[in-house]
């Protein structure tokens, strides 16, 4: 828990309402149920949990898996759009990390920006959701809300529309899970 505290403190400095923190496949019993944290797990827990979570995958071939909520994208081929079309009923999240964009040079970055725009249009059409994340491994790699807005505008996406649809998508995904409530 002490590892999460600096991140939570930094989160409010950056003007972010809630954040996703990635966990491996370890024991989930010790995790708390903080209201502003969404746990990102590699596999679905076997029992109900106290905390809110999403199941993530870094392989987009997992789009067809029914447990996965969020799929990280680093490379795309024609097959991706076909798979996205087929999985439209599941309201999947397509994650693009800023840390991945940082590693690209100007020419590749321009291509990736066009790609984000195309994924956004595609996800809107087929009921999925684009999720732009920092992909941070430390607090110094986190991205503030205002910078996310600037990146969205660079990709010709209206920040208000994006945040509203992301909020609705998150509420929908989290409401579908079973949680243990403290009484």
């Amino acid at each position, binding site marked *: 828990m002490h590892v999460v505290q600096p991140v939570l403190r930094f989160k409010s400095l950056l003007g972010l309402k809630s954040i996703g923190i990635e966990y491996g496949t370890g024991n989930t019993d010790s995790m708390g149920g903080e209201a502003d944290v969404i746990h990102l797990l590699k596999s679905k827990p076997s029992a109900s949990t106290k905390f809110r979570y999403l199941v993530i995958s870094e392989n987009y071939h997992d789009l067809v898996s029914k447990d996965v909520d969020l799929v990280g994208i680093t490379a795309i081929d024609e097959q991706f759009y076909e798979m996205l079309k087929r999985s439209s009923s599941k309201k999947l999240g397509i994650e693009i990390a800023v840390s991945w964009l940082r590693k690209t040079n100007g020419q590749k970055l321009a291509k990736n920006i066009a790609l984000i725009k195309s994924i956004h249009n595609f996800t809107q059409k087929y009921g999925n959701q684009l999720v732009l994340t920092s992909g941070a491994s430390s607090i110094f790699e986190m991205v503030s809300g205002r910078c996310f807005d600037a*990146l969205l505008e660079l990709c010709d996406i209206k920040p208000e529309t994006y945040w509203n649809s992301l909020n609705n998508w998150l509420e929908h995904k989290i409401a579908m899970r079973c949680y243990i409530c403290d009484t």
Partner: protein
Amino acid sequence: MTLKRRHKRRYMVVLFHPSPEELLSTTRDRMVDMFGHVITQKALLKIIYKIGPDLHVIRCRSEYLGEVLCAITLIDSEHPAVVLDISGTLRSLRTRAMDKKMSLRLP
């Protein structure tokens, strides 16, 4: 008589580990890479002062704030930069920056 107005400016508090000069040069390099020399020159990037060991205040023209924020966010360096606050005046930024400096004292 023509009224000559100064460009509107925006001030940013940026968390960046190496020196402020390196922050400015890496931001400029990324901006040139992304938007070209003309936009980078027009943005009038400047280091104003240093608040703490890793906190720097930089200034740019308000018309190019979006471009500057994108460039800072996408700095391709082993030390990424984090924009903590933005303001139109140095006075209000200074007050808020002090609070942020206190909050940043990590264990």
